[in-house]
């Protein structure tokens, strides 16, 4: 900054701006303390915790069945995957044999969740860049997925469809039909997304080369999910440690090496196609069987430590449960993807402009309850 000052020959003064907690593009109550030089960002200091509900502490009082519904409220856009993560951890501790049917249904719904999350993200990304129309289109298509969820799981957002050992109830008879209808519909709509934003010259100008982060930094900051894969960090837990039915489906791990906003955007766009591909493979092959393994009414995990990693729509979610053989866990830790992703924002944003920061935050796809827990 000193060079610029001497070049300009006049003194410039840095100033601070509070972006948030109430701001249209922080997508929740996140506060960013920006140090600015004109419009150029010198430093971004995130302040979070505005909706910290201490879910980890609450878990220490709850039974294992009850923990699941709390995770709905962390990353509410990939709530099913969060539920699944907890259930998988508990099942690992109990060494339960999970029916194949459950695994496949979980995978399908996980991928639908991912699709819904990415649709919403796409809409919000457009809105942050000023293309408000995209927001409505994203929500229009997401509505159809939430309808599927509502019919099968009983809720649109906080579904709580998993219980340790399986699912709360079997899929709705309409589930397969509706899902196939949706896939047929969305395969037509996804190219519209591309035409409206991806190829747009203004969009390309706004995202290409903006918010660069190197692969080393991404690994060091623990930026996972599509944000990490945009920098070439192969971190897809579905590939690294396959869980549920991911070991039997064929899909690509989307990797881009550019590390800029556009790469992160493209990862998600391509991931939507991969998600549809995964559902395509599974939707007609749901095996018959029970929707739930037999569990006791009061679950006690054997004493020990259990760690399960899953891939949510935002990245790697880790569930770390320490049990002391009681009906509530001794300690639960959620390694939420948003928390680590946010920490890299400062590195990305240095030297960019305010408008770029908004685009960057969109490409990180932050969900604030996920960060604050």
């Amino acid at each position: 900054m000193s060079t610029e000052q001497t070049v300009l020959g006049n003194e410039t003064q840095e100033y601070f701006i509070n972006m948030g907690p109430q701001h249209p593009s922080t997508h929740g109550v996140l506060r960013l303390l920006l140090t600015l030089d004109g419009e150029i960002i010198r430093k971004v200091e995130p302040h979070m915790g505005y909706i910290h509900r201490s879910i980890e502490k609450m878990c220490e009082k709850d039974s294992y069945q009850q923990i699941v519904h709390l995770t709905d409220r962390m990353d509410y856009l990939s709530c099913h995957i969060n539920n699944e993560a907890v259930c998988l951890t508990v099942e690992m501790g109990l060494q339960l044999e999970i029916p194949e049917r459950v695994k496949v249904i979980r995978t399908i719904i996980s991928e639908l969740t991912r699709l819904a999350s990415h649709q919403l993200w796409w809409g919000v990304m457009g809105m942050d860049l000023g293309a408000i129309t995209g927001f409505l289109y994203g929500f229009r298509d997401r509505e159809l997925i939430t309808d599927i969820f509502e019919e099968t799981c009983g809720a649109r957002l906080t579904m709580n469809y998993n219980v340790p050992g399986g699912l709360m109830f079997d899929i709705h008879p309409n589930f397969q039909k509706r899902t196939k209808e949706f896939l047929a519909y969305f395969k037509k709509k996804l190219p519209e997304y591309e035409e409206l934003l991806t190829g747009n010259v203004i969009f390309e100008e706004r995202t290409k080369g903006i918010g660069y982060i190197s692969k080393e930094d991404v690994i060091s900051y623990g930026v996972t999910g599509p944000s990490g894969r945009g920098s070439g960090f192969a971190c897809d837990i579905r590939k690294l440690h396959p869980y549920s039915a991911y070991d039997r489906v064929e899909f690509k791990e989307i990797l881009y090496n550019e590390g800029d906003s556009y790469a992160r955007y493209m990862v998600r766009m391509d991931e939507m196609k991969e998600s549809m591909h995964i559902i395509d493979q599974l939707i007609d092959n749901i095996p018959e069987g029970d929707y739930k393994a037999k569990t006791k009414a009061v679950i006690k995990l054997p004493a020990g430590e259990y760690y399960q990693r899953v891939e949510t729509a935002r990245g790697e979610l880790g569930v770390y449960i320490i049990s002391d053989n009681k009906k509530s866990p001794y300690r639960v830790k959620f390694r939420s993807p948003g928390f680590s992703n946010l920490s890299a924002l400062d590195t990305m944003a240095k030297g960019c402009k305010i408008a770029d920061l908004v685009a960057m935050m969109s490409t990180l796809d932050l969900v604030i309850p996920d960060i604050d827990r």
Partner: protein
Amino acid sequence: MNNDQIKEKVLKWFPDAEIPAEAGQFLNVIVTPEILHPLAEKLRYDKETHFDYLFCLSGVDWVSNLMVVYHLTSTNLGHEIVLKVKIADRENPEVDTVCDLWKTAEFHEREVYDLFGVKFKNHPDLRRILLEDDWEGFPMRKDYTDEANIVEL
């Protein structure tokens, strides 16, 4: 490297490190605060171990002591290890930061400080992260009481 080789290597570097015999999900290495940073540094930069990705950092209150747990993995070699540092001093728990090795630790250590009160030496910006700055006590500790906010069901 498989778990046995890593175990051998760690013990060669630091014979004091305690490695529980029972096979869990990961290879556990329990160390004291003094040797945490040197060990972490070796694990991070040694070509054979190359643990470059810290995917989870959590604090645990074992009542008798506090513990900070580091889940590490290597992005190119694929092996995993769990480093645990046992801090006996509950009143003034201190451990070296690993921010310089894995930048993600910066936020995660702030969280552990916030909720458990573990002070990380040399941390660039050790402040509360989730709770407000004037919060009293460390809520995730087992002896934390708050009659107003914690409702016993």
